[in-house]
């Protein structure tokens, strides 16, 4: 799922500085799961923001809401009544959720309260790690199910660099070398022959983000 982290308090305070009344909206999906923008975080942040503004003599009024998800227009609509009462919306949803609100509320400033960090998994409670960069052309089949795009610092496609040392990465010493993991995994599966196949360079400019805005269209689903 999408993982996010709350923005530094100073940054949030700076962004809402011009407003006296805002809507603080969480999201009941990914950011709830990673404890960054669920109802608990909304109430905590709202309380902290009110206190911070009270302290500098510029009281702030905050309405609180947490729709089940923010990335669908129907859920955004749930906020429309509340949004009429405020000057701006501070959203704790991921970048997608923020932009859904932007599309839905054309005249309302919508500010992000979290940094959308990565697509990752939970290693154990409170620890999350990146697993996917949405490159648009999955090669996990060739690499024993371990993604060198997201887990190798250099995004190497055909074996480790010279900096792989004792199974660790040279860029981030505490991180495992992705290619060590790939080798170990393929070796335990008895599929080391897969390493003999050369993975061609990714066509970032054709099938991935460098080609401009990506869009999925399912003609059969269109209404």
């Amino acid at each position, binding site marked *: 799922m999408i993982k996010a982290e709350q923005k530094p308090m100073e940054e949030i305070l700076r962004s809402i500085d011009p407003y006296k009344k805002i809507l603080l909206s969480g999201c009941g999906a990914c950011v709830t799961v990673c404890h960054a923008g669920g*109802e608990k975080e909304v109430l905590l942040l709202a309380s902290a923001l009110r206190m911070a503004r009270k302290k500098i003599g510029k009281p702030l009024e905050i309405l609180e809401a947490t729709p089940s998800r923010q990335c669908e227009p129907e859920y955004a609509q749930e906020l429309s009544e509340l949004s009429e009462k405020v000057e701006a919306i501070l959203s704790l949803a991921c970048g997608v959720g923020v932009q859904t609100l932007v599309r839905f509320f054309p005249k309302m400033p919508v500010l992000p309260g979290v940094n959308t960090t990565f697509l990752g998994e939970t290693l154990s409670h409170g620890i999350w790690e990146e697993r996917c960069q949405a490159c648009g052309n999955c090669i996990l089949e060739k690499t024993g199910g371990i993604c060198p795009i997201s887990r190798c610092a250099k995004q190497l496609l055909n074996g480790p660099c010279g900096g792989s040392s004792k199974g660790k990465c040279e860029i981030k010493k505490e991180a495992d070398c992705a290619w060590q993991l790939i080798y170990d995994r393929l070796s335990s599966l008895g599929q080391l022959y897969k390493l003999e196949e050369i993975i061609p360079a990714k066509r970032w400019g054709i099938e991935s983000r460098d080609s401009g805005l990506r869009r999925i269209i399912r003609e059969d689903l269109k209404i």
Partner: protein
Amino acid sequence: MARIGIFIDTLKGTLPSSFRERIRTTLRDVPEVVFSVEEDEFTSETFERMLKLLEHEGVERVVIVGGSPKLYETTFQKLGFPLPFNPYLFTVANIREQALWSSIDEREASEKAKNAVLKAIRIASSLRPIESQTLPLKPEVLILGGGISGISIALTLARAGIYVFLVERERTLGGKVTELWKFYNQELEAKGWLEQKILELRQNPRISLLAPARLKYLRGHMGRFQATILTDKGEETTISPSAIVVATGYRVERKRGGIYDHKRMVTLSEMEKLLSETNPPFPFFEGKRVETVTYLLDDTNEDIKLDSINALKQSLLLQGSLKCQVAILCKEFKVSSDRMERLYRKARELGVLFFKYEEAPRFSLVNGQIQVEVKDTSILRKEDQWSVSILSDLVVLCETFLPHQETMELSALLRLHLGKRGFFMEDNPQLLRVRSNRRGIFIAGGCRFPQEISETLFEANAVAQEVLALLSKGAYTYDLSVAEVDPKKCALCYTCPRVCPHSAIEVEKYAEKNVYLTHHVPENTKWGAAKVDPASCFGCGICVGECPARAITLRHYPDEFIYIQMGLDG
């Protein structure tokens, strides 16, 4: 508006009347208060009077103004009478300990008391009755592990009419007792004793033995566990016991490397075997007479008594009828078991030498014997302490006690906690030694802590009593004063199942019937959401504070009560 009745407990007249008068003045202005009466103490007659008054006035909520709530909770439990009101419809204003007694003067006390009483009234206004539920319990128990704990628990339970499934991973029953020759405190051969027990076990129609077999899955909670047992032939059986006893034992590991591999370095259990095969007057090792034996204790398992007990038992025999010279090197000789003090004295009288070491003793080979060098620190004056060297025919070592290999896997399967050393952890080391963190699962024997057989048997008895206490009524009745998940808000983040100390929460995936407490959800709704098992929940509220979606409420202690007590409700 709630109608509230107030009972002012004068605590046998110890609350000063002026103080009480001030409280009554406060109460006069509160519209919710229907009546306020004074009682000198709470007895069954008081209860009857209260009941009449409550019925007469049509009042359902009660505030008791008096001492600590703990006082009333214990008094009411002790009285054993059914309360004249739902136990969740009364609250206490603690004006003795936390007002009258802890204030500088009566004026300050009255202020505090007034605050406490008003808060109590506000809480009482929002109290809701909490019903209780009953969970039927079949007399069926699953015991994991056929060591001496498992066997004796099974026998006790079966005698009391409970059906037992005993699952043992090995082909033979008995566990570590099969390595034992004699008990230290009774003239009995362990082998025959154990065989008698196993025979009794096999003949008991209420005990089903599954061996060699292991637990593959466990689902559900107390009263309706679903345990899948896999036999070594690959057959799967699913049983639904009401309670589970874990008695999977421990394993030992011998020190290796260097001189420790020498054949004259034997372990306590090897020595036990040697002794069982010895014919007096002398013990022999590889055809040669053994004359000197040295025990090295406490180089591992420093806090386990078992090694001291076995070493003493063996040395009495060696030094006594087998005419050997025994030396025991230890840091602290542990005699805190039944009769150990006497046996220790007897050993000293027989001439067993005890050396208390701090630095690890050194071993070297001299003419095929092992020379042990140890600095004896039992002499207080440092300068008088000298090194002793003992030429030994045999050196007896302790084995390190470790959790059994499968303990880790089993703890994940059963969702039980492990202690720091990897053994199963009891719920409370002082008070609840045989209960695990989950209601309905008990732990016994060496999988919790290795100990001597007579102590293990005591513990096995304790476990059996706990299980009987649970199952004898045929049902478990509990109040729904538990945590409850609002399925509509649940984000399925798995925070609560991970954080629940009693493993009472699981995520239910589109189950057939998944509605248990929530009143506003229709009976046949299907959803995927975390679900608290009300019979397993202890009502601590840890999950409530963790839930990122704030989907969990503690039914008997909602946010509201806390805000009222904080003085923030408006």
